[in-house]
C-alpha cells in the first residue's frame, strides 16, 4: 500500500526529478542568494546617534588615500549646506567619504550621516563589470583594479548606492574611484580603516560583521528609546559590510529604503537566464508566428475568393 514503488509515487518522483533538472539553474540561483559573505569578513557599525559631524573621518580618509586637499578646510561647516540643486554632498573622486547634516522633525538637534562605499556582500558593481575589474576580498572589502578598467561606467549605474565615481581629469585614462576600506594599507594587516581610528566618539565600530550585528541588536535592545529598530545594511542590497544604527527612521537621514532586499546579482542572473531562452525559443516562436500569419493570409485570400464567387453568384 505504502510501498515506495507504487505507480503513483514512481511517477511523482520521476516528475520531480525531471522538474528539478529543468529548474536546476534556478536552484543554483537560490543558493547564491543565500550567500552570507565570507566567514569572519569585516565590517563597520555606524552609530548615527553618536556622530557629532566633526568630519575627522573625512580628514583621515583624505590623508590615508593621498587625495587632493579639500576646497575648504575640514573644519568648515559651510559644506553642510545643500548645493544649488538642493542636494547634499556625494562622495566623488576627490573625497571617498563625506558627512552630511540633516534637520528633521524627529530630533531637536541636527543629525549627521557619513556616506562611503557600503562594501556589499554581493556587489552589483562587480557583477556588472565586463572586464572583471572588481574583487570582493575575503576580508570584506570591494576593491578594483584601475588598470583593467575601460571606463564604461556600468558599475556607476549598477550600484544601488551610486558610489563609484570617475576621475575625468584625463580623457584617455578614465579611472574609477571609490572607498576601498583602506584595503591595501590597513585591512590586509588587520587594522581598522583610517576613518574608524580617527572617530573621537567611536560612532564607527570595526569588527567581524557577525559580531557587529550582535552589538547593533544589543544597543537597540538596551536602549529602545534611543534607536529605531532597524539595522540598515543587514539585508539591504543582499547585505552590506557597513551597517547603520539610527535614532530616527533611516529615510529621514538620506537612506534609500527602496533598495531591494535581495542582492542585485539575482536580478542580473534572472536577466542572464533569459538570454539562452531568446536564442532557442525565439526562432521557433517567430517561425510559428510567420506560419500562422501566412496561413491567415491564405485563409483571407481564399475567403475573399469564395466571397467574390458568392458575390458573383448573387449578382446574377
Amino acid at each position: 500500500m505504502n510501498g515506495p514503488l507504487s505507480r503513483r509515487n514512481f511517477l511523482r518522483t520521476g516528475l520531480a526529478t525531471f522538474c528539478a533538472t529543468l529548474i536546476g539553474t534556478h536552484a543554483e540561483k537560490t543558493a547564491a542568494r543565500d550567500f552570507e559573505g565570507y566567514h569572519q569578513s569585516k565590517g563597520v557599525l555606524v552609530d548615527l546617534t553618536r556622530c557629532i559631524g566633526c568630519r575627522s573621518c573625512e580628514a583621515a580618509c583624505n590623508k590615508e588615500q593621498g587625495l587632493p586637499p579639500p576646497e575648504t578646510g575640514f573644519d568648515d561647516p559651510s559644506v553642510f549646506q545643500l548645493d544649488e540643486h538642493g542636494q547634499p554632498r556625494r562622495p566623488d573622486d576627490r573625497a571617498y567619504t563625506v558627512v552630511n547634516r540633516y534637520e528633521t522633525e524627529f530630533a531637536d538637534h541636527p543629525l549627521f550621516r557619513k556616506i562611503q562605499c557600503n562594501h556589499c556582500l554581493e556587489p552589483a558593481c562587480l557583477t556588472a563589470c565586463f572586464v572583471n575589474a572588481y574583487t570582493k576580498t575575503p576580508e570584506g572589502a570591494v576593491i578594483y583594479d584601475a588598470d583593467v578598467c575601460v571606463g564604461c561606467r556600468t558599475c556607476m549605474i549598477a550600484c544601488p548606492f551610486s558610489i563609484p565615481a570617475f576621475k575625468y581629469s584625463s580623457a584617455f585614462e578614465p579611472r574609477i574611484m571609490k572607498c576601498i576600506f583602506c584595503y591595501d594599507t590597513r585591512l590586509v594587516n588587520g587594522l581598522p580603516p583610517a576613518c574608524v581610528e580617527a572617530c573621537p566618539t567611536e560612532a564607527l565600530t570595526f569588527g567581524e560583521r557577525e559580531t557587529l550585528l550582535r552589538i547593533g541588536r544589543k544597543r537597540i535592545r538596551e536602549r529602545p528609546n534611543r534607536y529605531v529598530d532597524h539595522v540598515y545594511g543587514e539585508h539591504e542590497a543582499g547585505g552590506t559590510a557597513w551597517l547603520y544604527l539610527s535614532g530616527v527612521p533611516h529615510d529621514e537621514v538620506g537612506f534609500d529604503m527602496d533598495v531591494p532586499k535581495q542582492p542585485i546579482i539575482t536580478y542580473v542572473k534572472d536577466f542572464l537566464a533569459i538570454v539562452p531562452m531568446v536564442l532557442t525559443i525565439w526562432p521557433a516562436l517567430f517561425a510559428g508566428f510567420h506560419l500562422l500569419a501566412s496561413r491567415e493570409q491564405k485563409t483571407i485570400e481564399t475567403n475573399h475568393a469564395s466571397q467574390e464567387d458568392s458575390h458573383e453568384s448573387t449578382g446574377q
Partner: protein
Amino acid sequence: MNKRHDHLFPGMLMLLGIVFILTAARTGSATDPSDYLDLDRLGDRYGEVAFDHALHADYAACSECHHHTTGEAPSDPVCAACHQAGDEAESVSCATCHPVQPFAVELIEQKANSTRYHIDIVGLQGAYHLNCLSCHEAIGGPTGCTDCHQSQP
C-alpha cells in the same frame, strides 16, 4: 591722622596674610593628582587634556563617569538593571577597561567568540568623548575640538 594710620597697618598685614594663605592653598590642591589630572594616554594629534577632577566631582556624582566602580550605585538606569549596588573596582582608571587600541586583532577575535555580556566596550578615545561631550552638551561645558586639547603640529 596718625592714629588712624596706626590702626590701618595691622589690618593691611592681616589682609596680606589671608591672601597669601589662600593662594598657597589653591596651588597645593592643584598639584594634588586626584584633584587635577593630565590625561595623555592617547595619540599625538592633540596634546594632553588638563582635567580638573575636583571641579567635576562637585558637578556630578562619581558614577556619572566611573559607572559603579567607585562603589556608588550606577546612575545610568540601563546599567542599574544588573548592577544595582556599587561594586568597587581595583582600578577606576578608564583605561583599565576601555582599551587604547579597541580594534586590535586579538580583541576582535576575543569579541567574536566571547560569551561575556559586555561585547560592546568602547575604546578609551570613545569612552572619554562620549562621556565628556554628552554632559558638556547637556549642561554647558567646552565642546570645540581644540577647547580641551591643542592641535599638535
